[in-house]
Each structure stands twice: as C-alpha cells, then as structure tokens.
C-alpha cells in the first residue's frame, strides 16, 4: 500500500511548485516579457511535454502482444479522430476511454 507520508509529500511538493509558477511571475513581469528564450520555450513546451506525457502513460504496453497493443491503438485513433472532428475535449476523452474500457474488460473476461 502507498505510504501516507510519501503521498502527502508528493501533493505538497507538486502544489508548492505549481503555486510558485503561478505567483512568482507577477513579481518579475518585465524580464518575462522581454526574455526571448522564455518566449521560445513557452511556445514549444506545452506541445512537447504533452506528447512525452502521452507516451509515458503507455510505456508499459507490450507492443509484441496484440491483445494489449491493438486496444491502445484503436482507442487512440478514436480519441484523435473525434477530437480533430468535434474539438470537444470531454467527448474525445470519454469516448476514447469508454471504448478502451469496453475492449480491455471484454478481453479480460474471455481469457
């Protein structure tokens, strides 16, 4: 079972860093407005970081095992196509997840 102190430390740490990133910039508006490096990173980081996170969440999927790989691929395709079509975040996430849960649960019950 997960250690309460570990979970609490993680929450406080993530919370403090998030707050610092939101509050401290108000004290240094001029450098942020004028730093071209920050602007360069700020434009590109969200895209890259979200992609890395997406890959991270499927890092343990066995690509040689069809019953593990195919549901991920199908659900991903549905999520992406739906989002490109409707641009509705809730719809894309819930539909992709629903399909994935359905496939994985059915596969697990048959085996």
């Amino acid at each position, binding site marked *: 079972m997960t250690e309460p102190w570990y*979970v609490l430390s993680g929450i406080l740490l993530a919370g403090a860093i998030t*707050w610092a990133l939101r509050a401290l910039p108000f004290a240094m508006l001029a450098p942020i407005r004028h730093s*071209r490096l920050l602007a360069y990173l*700020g434009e590109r980081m969200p895209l890259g970081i979200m992609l890395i996170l997406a890959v991270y969440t499927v890092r343990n999927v066995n690509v040689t095992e069809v019953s593990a790989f195919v549901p991920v691929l199908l659900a991903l395709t549905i999520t992406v196509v739906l*989002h490109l079509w409707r641009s509705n975040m809730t719809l894309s996430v819930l539909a992709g997840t629903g399909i994935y849960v359905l496939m994985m649960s059915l596969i697990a019950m048959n085996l």
Partner: protein
Amino acid sequence: MTNTRSEILAGWKVVLPVSIGVIPLGLALGVLVAQSGLAWYWALLISLIVFAGSMEFLLVGLFAAAAPLTQIALSAFLVNFRHVFYALTFPLHRVDGIGWKAYSTFTLTDEAYGLTTSKDAQTWSRAKILAIQGGLQIVWILAVVTGALLGGLIPPEIIGIDFAVTALFVVLAIEAYKAMKSLPVVALALLCALVGALISKEHMLLISMGMFAVALTSSYLFANHRRGEDD
C-alpha cells in the same frame, strides 16, 4: 453589499458553461484515485492543494508507480511551466489585499486564465474574479470527490479506466499543436520519449523531459549564435 452579491453571481454565471467540461474530467480523476487504491480524502487533498488538472492526473499515476519525489517535482515544474506567462495578462491588479492575491494566484488555472483573457476582464471587480476562481475550484473538488466515492462502486472486472489520462494528454497535445504548429517539436518530443523509455521505463519522465528541455534551449542558443551579434 448587494453590489458584491451581484458581482459574485456574475462570476458564477461565467463559470457555469465551463463546468460542463470540467465536471466529467473531475469525476474521471476521482475514479482514478479510487482505482489506484487511495482513500477518498486523498482525492480531496489532491484537488484542493495541487489544483492543476493535468498535473493531478499525472500525480495519481506517479503515486501508483511509486515515483521518486524528484520526478514528481520536475514533472510539476515542466507540466505547469506554461503558467509563467499567465501573469502577463491576468488582471491581478484588480484583486486587492495580499490574502486575496495569494488565493487568486493559487487558483490561476488554465480555465481561470481562459475566462479572464477578454479585454473587459481588465476592469472586472475583485468579487467577480474571485467568484470565478472560487467557483471553478468548488466545482472541481466536488466532482473529484464524487468520482472517488463512486469509483469504489465500480466492479473489479471493469478495467482500463486509466486510459483517460492517455486520452487527456493526447487531446491536450492536439490543442497545443493548434497553437504551435511545429512538426520538428513533435518529432523531437517523440524522439526524447522513445529514448527515455528505452533507457529506463521507471525514470523515463525525468530523462525524456530533461532531454527535451535541454534540446530546446540548445536549439535556441544555436540559432541565436548563428544569427550573430547584430540580432
């Protein structure tokens, strides 16, 4: 006083349509918390103290993987780095009082920022701005805790709900791509992700995000160097 009341109501009116998108995601996060074996009060603490949607989803996964605190810290920094730029336009000057300013920055989420980017938001009252931020936080916490309580009722035969995190990040990546249409950034990020996963699945996040940040900074410095001193 009636003026403050009408301002608060005006703020909540702004929050209402956004809630329709926020509530299902909050419920999903709560279900994930329950499924990862954490008690419902952890869902309350996470949504109350971290209050940054994508980081909260990631955090639940990091806890499940027993990720080291250094990895949690770096993830929080890189995932929420975008908030640095919200200070440029968010109407914090309308929020008087150090305590209210503290709360306003604490709850400066993507949604709060998105709802205050309009030009007339620069003249909104403190009551309206705080009602928007407080309203969003209340809606979020209620959704997450409800999800955590309901999550315990889902039979163990139902598996794969954690795909919601993958889908969320993919959708956020598409949204980020709309703002920054750069295929080199996509290629670089996927390469960093792949290399990180090949080196160590356990430390992948640290390696991949570190590589990506270093590569981006290098490419900026290199381009600047080539442009010469006149620039």
